[in-house]
């Protein structure tokens, strides 16, 4: 799945530490077509970053780069990804990277599991610039998208609202979740741009 207009194969950033040859070999394994391979690379990279985040890792982007680096080195040694399961190899290497990180950080994890954590502080104490940017970005959405995302977020204990909204649209609740989330991603990118901070899609 790619969003229209969000990829240019000539500008796919190469992870640091990965040689050009290794990177090209990696792209070739993802797809024979260079453009599609670049798209898959970016999608998979984003997914791995999120998986490392969800696993609670501190430097998800660095760990993702490490994963791609290892896969590319293996490809340079002659290993070929099975066409039936090209992504399983990425997953396997990512798990190895994760386990190594966890072993190193095991003492830190025990401290983390002590509990009693207060709610995290907001991104910035004064949220009004964020709110202002969000309002501008909402105004930039199509009416249906704006209505959808705001109705989805309305009200306390809003599970019932969401179920009613899904029934109104004639779709399942999970399909509604995905639809709303795609609008949220647009808003997130727009707000980051408005605030002048890098979008989550920009690689370092």
């Amino acid at each position: 799945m790619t969003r229209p207009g969000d990829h240019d194969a000539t500008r796919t950033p190469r992870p640091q530490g990965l040689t050009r040859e290794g990177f090209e070999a990696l792209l070739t394994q993802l797809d024979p077509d260079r453009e599609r391979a670049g798209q898959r690379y970016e999608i998979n990279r984003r997914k791995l970053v999120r998986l490392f985040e969800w696993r609670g890792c501190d430097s998800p982007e660095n760990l993702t780069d490490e994963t791609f680096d290892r896969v590319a080195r293996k490809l340079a040694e002659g290993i070929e990804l099975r066409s039936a399961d090209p992504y399983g190899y990425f997953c396997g290497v990512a798990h190895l990277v994760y386990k190594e990180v966890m072993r190193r950080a095991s003492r830190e994890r025990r401290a983390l599991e002590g509990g009693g954590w207060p709610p995290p502080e907001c991104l910035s104490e004064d949220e009004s610039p964020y709110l202002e940017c969000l309002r501008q970005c909402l105004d930039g959405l199509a009416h249906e998208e704006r209505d959808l995302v705001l109705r989805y977020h309305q009200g306390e204990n809003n599970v019932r609202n969401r179920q009613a909204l899904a029934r109104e649209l004639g779709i399942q609740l999970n399909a509604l979740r995905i639809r709303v989330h795609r609008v949220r991603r647009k808003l997130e990118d727009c707000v980051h741009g408005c605030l002048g901070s890098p979008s989550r899609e920009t690689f370092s």
Partner: protein
Amino acid sequence: MNENLPKNELLRGYLLGELAEDEADRLERRLIEDDEFFDLCEAVEADLIAAYARGELKTDVALHRLVSSPGGRARLALARSLNSVADSRLSESRTVVPFRRRVAAVVRPGAQWALAAAAAILVLIGAFWFTRQTPPESGAQIQEVKNSLPPTSGSEQQPGPSKTKALDTASQTPPDRPVRQDERTSAKTPKRPEPLKAAVFELALTTLRGAERAEVQKFPVPAGTELVEIRLDVEGYEDLEVFHAAVRNQESRETVWEKGGLKPRRLEWGPALVLDIPAGRLPSGRYEVTVTAGTTDVSQQFEVARENR
């Protein structure tokens, strides 16, 4: 991976660190391979963060981890702002419709009886005059007219819509059919039993177990409550058809209520199991409701806070 579990429940368990290692590994493989499944995972994460931003979830290690990373803090800020904008839009769109008493539909009891008495007197006078004027064989018609009068002794009707409807009927038109004598004499309608005073709770079920559940809802039970109605959201489990439910006191570990053969009902917001529990079985404390169907076993904890007068 348990394919019978709703996908959002599985993903929620994964995000909150509740899945076994091998299950999480298999799920991550699917996340890499399946773009739509990945989108759903991000959507479930966003919903968790939005609920956390509203204070609907208590902070625990897993949630803290989700919202503490730089990306997580940005997502939390987005959720807070979206909640704020959405709620302000909701409050702007609400219009208060002033309540207006429908005076015309309510007839004062005294006036109703006075009207009925006046009508009865007129009919009696008319009947008397009629018998003086007409042949004896019309006597049966007079009895029928008399029988068609609304009951003047009346029933001890309670205030409310039912009484309103009865008053309208009495003051406007007689019944469509002659009322038999036995019906008139037993015109006092049996007193409808008062509905039990009930407190209604709604819960979503989860496959997650253990002390690290993200949320325990607290339900106040007003003094005088006789019945606690627990409505369990079973969306995604409807194909299981028949359920067994049990409620256990978490402190004493005692099962305070259970019932089998339960079938989901279609409520306005979706399919639900409705448990009717005598309030006396739920003193203040923490409970766990467990629902079983086949090999599926889901549960949820909740807390009851009995209110004193």
